[in-house]
């Protein structure tokens, strides 16, 4: 009788762990969205009981990994082109892509008063160096280059540009005051809805194409309730409040493409 009971308990425990695993969703998260996503994942777990297991990395790396059999079920990319490409190649469930956040570009300096709130600091050579992320690899870098070009000041700044490998590196260069001025993400300099230190100009949207960050359901997550639930939760009011508080904008109607 005792053995029977032990076996039953073991079986129940096994079933419970199996259930717990079924409710886990593996998420590949763009590194720049790490902080808000951790908060969203906590709320997601509280309100749905599902657990989101987050991996942070570069969008290009995730693309290579997904093509080579990575077990990720949901993907939060740092741009909208890579998920589109992945969908065309059959790694993304068609129709599942949606914009979960729109990045805001900001010209930032650690020194108070250095950057005025209309970007006039860019109209003359006010600094010997200007930092931006690699425009070929990072959407924020491409937007920064567009801004300089549309303002007609690119020739002035071209010889003074310092390229970071990604937006995190650019932030570190400006935050350490190695470079006096730089284009970074608003989400990097905003703490609780305010720009924490230094001076900044939030670049108006007309100066560059929108920096859309798209999420997608990956083929590995097609039949996963938790994966689908996470994508739905990203559009919920609590999640959107977190996204906004980190300095991102939201699409006018955040439905699937």
């Amino acid at each position, binding site marked *: 009788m005792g053995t029977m009971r032990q076996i039953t308990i073991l079986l129940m425990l096994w079933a419970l762990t199996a259930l717990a695993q079924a409710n886990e969703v593996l998420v590949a998260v763009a590194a*720049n969205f790490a902080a808000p996503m951790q908060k969203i994942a906590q709320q997601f777990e509280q309100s749905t009981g599902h657990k989101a297991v987050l*991996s942070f990395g570069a969008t290009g790396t995730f693309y*290579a*990994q997904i093509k*080579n059999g990575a077990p990720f079920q949901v993907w939060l990319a740092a741009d909208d082109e890579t998920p589109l490409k992945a969908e065309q190649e059959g790694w993304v469930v068609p129709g599942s892509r949606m914009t979960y956040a729109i990045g805001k570009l900001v010209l930032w300096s650690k020194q108070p008063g250095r950057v005025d709130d209309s970007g006039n600091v860019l109209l003359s050579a006010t600094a010997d160096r200007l930092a931006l992320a690699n425009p070929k690899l990072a959407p924020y870098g491409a937007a920064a280059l567009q801004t300089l070009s549309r303002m007609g000041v690119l020739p002035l700044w071209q010889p003074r540009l310092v390229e970071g490998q990604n937006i995190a590196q650019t932030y570190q260069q400006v935050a350490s005051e190695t470079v006096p001025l730089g284009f970074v993400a608003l989400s990097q300099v905003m703490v609780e809805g305010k720009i924490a230190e230094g001076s900044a100009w939030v670049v108006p949207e007309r100066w560059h194409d929108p920096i859309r960050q798209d999420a997608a359901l990956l083929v590995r997550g097609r039949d996963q309730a938790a994966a689908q639930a996470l994508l739905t939760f990203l559009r919920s009011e609590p999640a959107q409040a977190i996204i906004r508080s980190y300095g991102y904008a939201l699409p006018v109607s955040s439905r699937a493409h």
Partner: protein
Amino acid sequence: MPMSFFLDSQTLDAIALTLRLATLTALVLLFLATPLAWWLAQSTSRWRSVIAALVAMPLVLPPSVLGFYLLVALGPQGPLGRFTQAMGWGLLPFTFSGLLLGSVVYSLPFAVQPIQNAFESMGRRPMEVAATLRASPLDAFFTVALPLAQPGLWVAAILSFAHTVGEFGVVLMMGGNIAHQTRVVSTEIYGHVEAMEYAQAHELAAGMLVFSFGVLWLLSFFKTERMRWWR
């Protein structure tokens, strides 16, 4: 903050995984690198220089490049990936075995070179003497060459262990940085930095720093003190 000394389960898992990976890598490499180093030290084949160059390749390849090629080769469409699937081992990327394989490749020169140096500095004389005493080559290898090369074996084990603890590019690319499965200390630090959790990042980085110093100290100990005692 005193609270921060109590590490969360994710960090503990990352530390345990790192230590397991580094220990297994060092063990596998001792078995793999010793015969390879012996061959490199003894052989007069014209392939010797080619093999020596191949073994040294991970020293010059950027880790993320090495990781990328391993990922593609071991992926579902890659030649090695097809092989592992045909053998019924499944796919190695994003698993612990995949990390182990990547680490072994990445640290290979760190294990081969100290052992090879030890065999070379021993000269041919001890093996010749063993042969005149009618020891078979295999017997002489285990009773003469290996004991003489022991300091080199220790250096190889310590170096490949330490190198694996510090690796980042290969494990990030091949492992996918998945919590509790393939997340090691270095990729955990990366996650903290990206999430702007600098306190946790500093804590782990300080731990790594102290650990690396300890290992390098142990290494110079083996290179100097220990050798002196043996003489």
